[in-house]
Protein backbone atom coordinates (compact mmCIF):
# COMPACT_ATOMS: atom_id res chain seq x y z
CA UNK A 1 0.00 0.00 0.00
CA UNK A 2 1.36 3.40 -1.07
CA UNK A 3 1.25 6.04 1.66
CA UNK A 4 2.29 9.65 1.04
CA UNK A 5 3.03 11.88 4.02
CA UNK A 6 2.94 15.66 3.95
CA UNK A 7 4.22 18.48 6.13
CA UNK A 8 5.67 17.48 9.52
CA UNK A 9 4.36 13.93 9.01
CA UNK A 10 7.04 13.43 6.36
CA UNK A 11 9.63 13.90 9.13
CA UNK A 12 7.95 11.26 11.29
CA UNK A 13 7.34 8.65 8.58
CA UNK A 14 8.82 9.63 5.16
CA UNK A 15 7.53 11.50 2.15
CA UNK A 16 6.36 8.17 0.75
CA UNK A 17 6.33 4.57 1.88
CA UNK A 18 5.10 1.43 0.20
CA UNK A 19 4.31 -1.17 2.83
CA UNK A 20 2.38 -4.37 3.24
CA UNK A 21 -0.46 -3.57 5.62
CA UNK A 22 -3.73 -5.39 5.84
CA UNK A 23 -6.11 -2.74 7.07
CA UNK A 24 -9.75 -2.49 6.10
CA UNK A 25 -10.38 1.09 7.14
CA UNK A 26 -8.44 4.32 7.54
CA UNK A 27 -8.80 3.99 11.32
CA UNK A 28 -7.20 0.56 11.42
CA UNK A 29 -4.41 1.72 9.09
CA UNK A 30 -3.62 4.60 11.44
CA UNK A 31 -3.58 2.24 14.40
CA UNK A 32 -1.00 0.04 12.69
CA UNK A 33 1.11 3.03 11.61
CA UNK A 34 1.09 4.36 15.19
CA UNK A 35 2.72 1.17 16.44
CA UNK A 36 5.41 1.42 13.76
CA UNK A 37 5.87 5.20 14.09
CA UNK A 38 5.13 6.06 17.73
CA UNK A 39 5.71 9.80 17.11
CA UNK A 40 2.50 9.77 15.06
CA UNK A 41 0.43 9.35 18.22
CA UNK A 42 -1.53 12.43 19.22
CA UNK A 43 -0.78 14.23 15.98
CA UNK A 44 -3.63 15.98 14.17
CA UNK A 45 -3.92 15.13 10.50
CA UNK A 46 -6.47 14.43 7.80
CA UNK A 47 -6.46 11.54 5.36
CA UNK A 48 -7.08 11.40 1.62
CA UNK A 49 -7.74 8.22 -0.34
CA UNK A 50 -7.24 8.48 -4.10
CA UNK A 51 -7.16 12.29 -3.86
CA UNK A 52 -10.38 12.63 -1.86
CA UNK A 53 -10.57 13.64 1.79
CA UNK A 54 -12.21 10.81 3.75
CA UNK A 55 -13.42 9.96 7.26
CA UNK A 56 -11.65 7.54 9.57
CA UNK A 57 -14.14 4.75 8.87
CA UNK A 58 -13.57 4.91 5.12
CA UNK A 59 -12.86 1.45 3.61
CA UNK A 60 -9.49 1.07 1.92
CA UNK A 61 -7.90 -1.40 -0.49
CA UNK A 62 -4.35 -2.46 -1.24
CA UNK A 63 -4.36 -0.52 -4.55
CA UNK A 64 -5.42 2.83 -3.04
CA UNK A 65 -3.19 5.86 -2.82
CA UNK A 66 -3.32 7.00 0.80
CA UNK A 67 -2.17 10.45 1.87
CA UNK A 68 -1.62 11.65 5.43
CA UNK A 69 -1.99 15.42 5.57
CA UNK A 70 -0.65 17.50 8.46
CA UNK A 71 -2.54 20.76 9.16
CA UNK A 72 -2.17 23.07 6.16
CA UNK A 73 0.08 26.11 6.26
CA UNK A 74 -0.11 27.70 2.84
CA UNK A 75 -0.21 31.42 2.15
Amino acid sequence: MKIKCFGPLSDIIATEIDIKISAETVASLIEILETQYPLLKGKTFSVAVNHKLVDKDFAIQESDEIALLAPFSGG
Partner: protein
Amino acid sequence: MHKKRNSFIEGPISPAFIADAIAKHQSKTEIGAHHIFLGQVRKDTIQDREVQAIEYTTYKDLAEDIIAEIREAIFAKYEINCMHIHHSLGKIDAGEICFFVFTSSKHRKATMDACEELVERIKKEVPIWGKELFNESSYQWKENK
Protein backbone atom coordinates in the same frame (compact mmCIF):
# COMPACT_ATOMS: atom_id res chain seq x y z
CA MET B 1 -16.64 19.38 -15.65
CA HIS B 2 -14.34 22.24 -14.85
CA LYS B 3 -11.11 22.52 -16.72
CA LYS B 4 -8.26 21.71 -14.33
CA ARG B 5 -6.24 24.82 -13.69
CA ASN B 6 -2.66 25.14 -12.69
CA SER B 7 -2.68 27.27 -9.57
CA PHE B 8 0.94 26.55 -8.65
CA ILE B 9 4.10 28.29 -9.74
CA GLU B 10 7.63 26.97 -9.17
CA GLY B 11 9.54 29.66 -7.30
CA PRO B 12 8.50 33.20 -6.33
CA ILE B 13 5.73 35.21 -7.99
CA SER B 14 7.39 38.16 -9.71
CA PRO B 15 6.02 41.72 -9.82
CA ALA B 16 6.14 41.41 -13.63
CA PHE B 17 3.82 38.39 -13.47
CA ILE B 18 1.37 40.44 -11.40
CA ALA B 19 1.61 43.39 -13.81
CA ASP B 20 0.87 41.03 -16.69
CA ALA B 21 -2.21 39.66 -14.90
CA ILE B 22 -3.47 43.22 -14.36
CA ALA B 23 -2.79 44.25 -17.98
CA LYS B 24 -4.82 41.30 -19.28
CA HIS B 25 -7.95 42.84 -17.75
CA GLN B 26 -7.80 46.14 -19.59
CA SER B 27 -9.93 44.84 -22.43
CA LYS B 28 -12.63 43.82 -19.95
CA THR B 29 -14.32 47.20 -19.80
CA GLU B 30 -17.25 46.00 -17.69
CA ILE B 31 -14.83 45.72 -14.75
CA GLY B 32 -14.61 48.68 -12.37
CA ALA B 33 -12.68 47.29 -9.41
CA HIS B 34 -9.80 44.89 -8.82
CA HIS B 35 -8.60 43.55 -5.53
CA ILE B 36 -5.23 41.90 -5.07
CA PHE B 37 -3.84 40.07 -2.07
CA LEU B 38 -0.14 39.24 -1.96
CA GLY B 39 1.54 37.03 0.63
CA GLN B 40 5.22 37.83 1.15
CA VAL B 41 7.70 35.64 3.05
CA ARG B 42 8.64 37.33 6.34
CA LYS B 43 12.11 37.17 7.89
CA ASP B 44 10.68 36.25 11.28
CA THR B 45 12.98 35.68 14.21
CA ILE B 46 12.04 32.50 16.07
CA GLN B 47 14.12 31.67 19.13
CA ASP B 48 17.08 33.70 17.85
CA ARG B 49 16.96 32.13 14.43
CA GLU B 50 15.95 34.12 11.35
CA VAL B 51 13.67 32.68 8.69
CA GLN B 52 15.69 32.92 5.46
CA ALA B 53 13.10 31.31 3.21
CA ILE B 54 9.99 29.15 3.21
CA GLU B 55 9.89 25.96 1.20
CA TYR B 56 6.38 25.15 0.02
CA THR B 57 5.05 21.74 -0.94
CA THR B 58 1.57 20.62 -1.93
CA TYR B 59 -0.44 17.50 -2.64
CA LYS B 60 -1.28 18.73 -6.10
CA ASP B 61 -4.03 16.36 -7.24
CA LEU B 62 -6.09 17.09 -4.16
CA ALA B 63 -5.12 20.77 -3.98
CA GLU B 64 -6.33 21.59 -7.49
CA ASP B 65 -9.66 19.86 -6.79
CA ILE B 66 -10.16 21.83 -3.60
CA ILE B 67 -9.19 25.12 -5.27
CA ALA B 68 -11.72 24.36 -8.03
CA GLU B 69 -14.43 23.80 -5.41
CA ILE B 70 -13.55 27.04 -3.64
CA ARG B 71 -13.60 28.95 -6.96
CA GLU B 72 -17.05 27.59 -7.74
CA ALA B 73 -18.39 28.53 -4.31
CA ILE B 74 -16.99 32.08 -4.52
CA PHE B 75 -18.39 32.61 -8.02
CA ALA B 76 -21.79 31.43 -6.75
CA LYS B 77 -21.68 33.70 -3.72
CA TYR B 78 -20.33 36.97 -5.13
CA GLU B 79 -21.04 38.93 -8.29
CA ILE B 80 -17.52 38.93 -9.64
CA ASN B 81 -16.23 38.76 -13.20
CA CYS B 82 -13.04 36.84 -12.64
CA MET B 83 -10.64 35.48 -10.08
CA HIS B 84 -7.07 34.25 -10.22
CA ILE B 85 -5.24 32.21 -7.62
CA HIS B 86 -1.51 31.49 -7.65
CA HIS B 87 0.65 29.89 -4.99
CA SER B 88 4.38 29.25 -5.11
CA LEU B 89 6.07 25.91 -4.63
CA GLY B 90 9.71 25.34 -3.69
CA LYS B 91 12.03 27.70 -1.85
CA ILE B 92 10.83 31.30 -1.60
CA ASP B 93 13.26 33.75 0.00
CA ALA B 94 12.22 36.29 2.62
CA GLY B 95 10.85 39.37 0.82
CA GLU B 96 9.60 37.40 -2.15
CA ILE B 97 5.95 36.83 -2.98
CA CYS B 98 4.49 33.35 -2.54
CA PHE B 99 0.71 33.87 -2.79
CA PHE B 100 -1.34 35.96 -5.21
CA VAL B 101 -5.12 36.26 -5.18
CA PHE B 102 -6.83 38.56 -7.69
CA THR B 103 -10.56 39.30 -7.98
CA SER B 104 -12.35 41.67 -10.36
CA SER B 105 -15.89 42.91 -10.62
CA LYS B 106 -18.12 45.79 -11.60
CA HIS B 107 -18.25 47.27 -8.11
CA ARG B 108 -15.71 47.26 -5.31
CA LYS B 109 -17.67 45.64 -2.49
CA ALA B 110 -17.97 42.24 -4.19
CA THR B 111 -14.27 42.14 -5.18
CA MET B 112 -13.13 42.97 -1.67
CA ASP B 113 -15.33 40.41 0.04
CA ALA B 114 -14.54 37.71 -2.53
CA CYS B 115 -10.80 38.37 -2.25
CA GLU B 116 -10.87 38.22 1.54
CA GLU B 117 -12.86 34.98 1.62
CA LEU B 118 -10.63 33.37 -1.02
CA VAL B 119 -7.50 34.14 0.99
CA GLU B 120 -9.02 32.74 4.19
CA ARG B 121 -10.34 29.58 2.55
CA ILE B 122 -7.16 28.80 0.61
CA LYS B 123 -5.00 29.16 3.72
CA LYS B 124 -7.37 26.92 5.66
CA GLU B 125 -8.55 24.32 3.15
CA VAL B 126 -5.86 23.77 0.52
CA PRO B 127 -3.18 21.14 1.23
CA ILE B 128 -0.06 23.30 1.14
CA TRP B 129 2.75 23.16 3.68
CA GLY B 130 5.47 25.67 4.45
CA LYS B 131 8.83 24.76 5.94
CA GLU B 132 10.55 27.75 7.52
CA LEU B 133 14.25 27.49 6.71
CA PHE B 134 16.76 29.04 9.12
CA ASN B 135 20.51 29.37 8.75
CA GLU B 136 22.64 26.24 8.84
CA SER B 137 20.04 23.91 7.37
CA SER B 138 17.78 23.91 10.42
CA TYR B 139 14.06 24.44 9.91
CA GLN B 140 10.64 24.30 11.48
CA TRP B 141 7.25 23.62 9.94
CA LYS B 142 5.11 26.73 9.52
CA GLU B 143 1.79 26.76 11.37
CA ASN B 144 -1.21 28.83 10.25
CA LYS B 145 -3.04 30.48 13.10
